[in-house]
């Protein structure tokens, strides 16, 4: 089993920046979060958002929907079984979700937020009470669908967006690092 221990702040920051990318409400927020990843890719706010929307938002069918239920339950609908499973996990983690029943609980940005906050407890506050839940969330949920989400976005892209590829690869490396860092016991 690999035991890589990356620098704590960058590990936390990367989750945070990726979270902020997927939760951005407009071009500006998206660009700020994207730039924070140090991509060294020159792209305008508008182009970045247009590409992001084509990949993940819409209004036409995006290349890859950023919801767990799409990959776990049903490729066409949100708010299904796995969404409600994530809802239960959040409740057990001690979270309340102000956008409950508005933005599905299993939206990638929300899940990264949960993961970021749990990791923050451990890394910044050295609190391990929710550590098992974080691992469970990572191995039994995020790992179940995020790789498929990334693969779909990378494989089906006809647009060859450097910026989106960078985001997806960052997400992929984050997931690999988190899963291999922590190990699994079944």
């Amino acid at each position, binding site marked *: 089993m690999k035991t890589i221990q990356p620098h704590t702040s960058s590990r936390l920051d990367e989750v945070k920046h990726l979270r902020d990318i997927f*939760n951005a*409400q*407009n*071009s500006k927020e998206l660009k700020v979060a994207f730039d924070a990843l140090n991509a060294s890719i020159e792209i305008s706010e*508008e182009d970045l*958002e*247009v590409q992001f*929307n*084509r990949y993940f*938002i*819409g*209004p*036409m*069918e995006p290349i890859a929907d950023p919801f767990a239920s*799409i990959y776990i339950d*049903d*490729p*066409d*609908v*949100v*708010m*299904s079984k796995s*969404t409600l499973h994530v*809802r*239960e*996990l959040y*409740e*057990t983690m*001690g*979270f*309340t*979700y*102000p*956008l*409950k*029943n*508005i933005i599905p609980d299993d939206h990638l*940005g*929300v899940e990264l*937020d949960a993961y*970021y*906050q749990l990791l*923050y*407890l451990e890394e*910044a*506050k050295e*609190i391990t*009470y*929710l*550590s*098992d839940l974080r*691992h*469970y969330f990572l*191995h*039994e949920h995020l790992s179940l669908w995020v790789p498929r989400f990334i693969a779909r976005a990378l494989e089906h892209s006809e647009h060859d967006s450097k910026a989106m590829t960078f985001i997806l690869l960052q997400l992929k490396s984050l997931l690999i690092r988190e899963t291999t860092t*922590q*190990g*699994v*016991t*079944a």
Partner: protein
Amino acid sequence: MSYSKENVESIVNNGISRRSFLKGLAASGVLSSFPGGILQANEDLNTKIPYLGEKSYQTFRNACPRNCYDTCSIKTYVKDGVMQFIEGATESTYTHGGCCVKGNSYVKRVYSARRLKFPMMQVGGKGSGNWKRISWDQAMDIIAKKLLEMKKEDGTLLGAALTKYSGNFGITHYGIEGMFNSIGYTTRLAGTPCWPAGIDAQNLDMGDMWCNDPEEMKDSKFIILWGVNPASNSIHSMKYIYEAKKKGAKVVVIDPVFTEAASKASQYIQIKAGTDGLLALGMAKIIIEAGLHDQKWLDANSKGYKEYKAYLDKEVKLDNVSKITGIPLAMIKELALSFAKAKPATIWMGYGMQRHTNGGSMIRAIDAFVAVSGNIGKYAGGARYGHLNTWGFNYAALSQTKPEGSVGYTGPEGAKGDVAQGKDAKSNYTDRFLNINKTARELINAKEPKVRLLWVACKNVFAQDFDRNQLIRAFQQLDLVVVADQFFNETAKWADIVLPVATQFEEYDVNVSYWHYWLTLNEQAIKPLFEVKSDLEIAAMLSKRMNQLQTGSCTFPQSVDTKAMMAKEFNPGIYEQFGIKSWEELKNGPVKAKAVIPYADGKFKTPSGKFEFYSDKALELFGSALPTYLEVRKPYDKFRMTSPHSRWSLHSQFQNLEWMEDVHPEPYVYINPDDAEAKMVKEGDTVAVFNKQGLLRVKAKLTDNVQAGTVLMYEQWYNNNIYNVNELVDDTSSDMGAFKTGAPGVALHDTFVNFRKL
């Protein structure tokens, strides 16, 4: 570090473990250490055992607001704020506890990943596919500024056009027209693509469009389903038809296409399209000659029977009727005589038949036949087409005053649509009405001022309006196209701004049918998803922004509550008709209007007060006082193309959902095997279907359900498929429609095409 999956799952799923875990969590002070994000620390952890959360079902009353005969009463089951399933309401004897497959898919529709989620703007030009999110405030700012700029430059708001139709027939959705009423005199795409020629025909004959309760059909002794296919498109009506048949009634389907309903009938008669009126005239002649007409009823209740009979005697030759309709004379005679002998007998006329250049005259001819047989004004009888008899709401959302000083159109009064919006008595101005059935050319040709802004609501223009290629040109010349919808359809593709609209489960409304007699409350069952808003809320936001920019420029309320707006639609007349004291009673379930037999009292709303075989109004407007035989449009290409409704969709709605895509994944052209053989086309071949309008590539299915000389393609919108039958349909008018709906219907079944194998 390791973790135990079993341990975590026990915490999540086992009440006692969960309580102890959460108690520990609360005591540990962990909650105050969360950094906070979208998720917040829950300071009020629920540690009850058993933990039910909000897991018990809540139920809500809903209605299916689509353009469908059945307008189902729905009961919606919600758990923890999430719709779980729906069922037909059992209180309505019509819905009878069951919805159609489309209705049953509503959970998938509401939670479809394909729904429009945010207001968005197309930044690379219409059709570019480059979209950017904008806030609702930004969207309203752009639209409000454009409207005020146009008003300043043109001196009127006639450059702003609204096209809205039947995507949601909820009563408060007339608030969209209300929004346009509230900004001034504007341009409306008016009239109706649906049923106008038939509405005119029935109004000329009887002074109204008013059908008997469909539930009575169970007691009919003879039912003719004439150009209507309820087995696909009004499935709840079929139980009455089956019951009648079980009790010995004869059920005959007359249709150019062998439909699902035909397969359930006692007899199917395949008629040549566009000749139905002549068949009805021939049948009337036969029963009169046999002395089976209801002379007593005719004497007491009709006007012009003598002239009508003289026309039949002189002009209608039965040999010709047989030849032109393609039906053997003996079969016509048997049909006419057995219908006349059965009492009560009824005819249900579909909306396809009147979509011919002679459509209105055909409905008049069938009305006349039913009248001659003595079945008008009778329980379980009637010439059934549709009704708006239960639609007497206040239209409070619709009725908005114009801002002071508004300047409008001064030309002749134009089209109005299903719900009449009369000329403002106190004003010299009206809105400018353009014919909805000629949307493309009317948008292009409108001048002084030209149309610069188009608002599309409850309507997929590209799927439903005609001549797609010209529509693209029309949209491209507009400064600003706003499409308010639930899904990204082809119309949205050509928009500048798309606005995500709530489903009926996310707002309050009230619904009635144009067929049955039930009234249904539509409660908000769930929170609106993402950033979707109801059409009324959108109107309020626009009003707010317009008034911020220019006080008094919009009279629409600046904030609305859909429940309060819905409540305003009720009045004592509705309460009396449905036997309730308050709309709140509808929370217990749908209610039915008090029983009434149309025209049983012999009172018709025609000028003469009688059933008018001879109509002066018809003579004045359409050149023929009598229901005469009018020849259908001459072919301009080799094959007739008919484009009826599909059972997998409701116009352009539902086909994009998984259940429908599963069973009906792609469009086909249905070709008679004889025609296919002549063109060397085999099942599954891709063919080009083409005419002077355009060309479609589509797979062939061979079936003798369609007659030789005719091809069939359903009018549908497919997600991610360029197919659109209106590529081939021109905007030729039907004969009637201008009388009651302001613009003639469209003769879409008089489309002609050719095809070849690719």
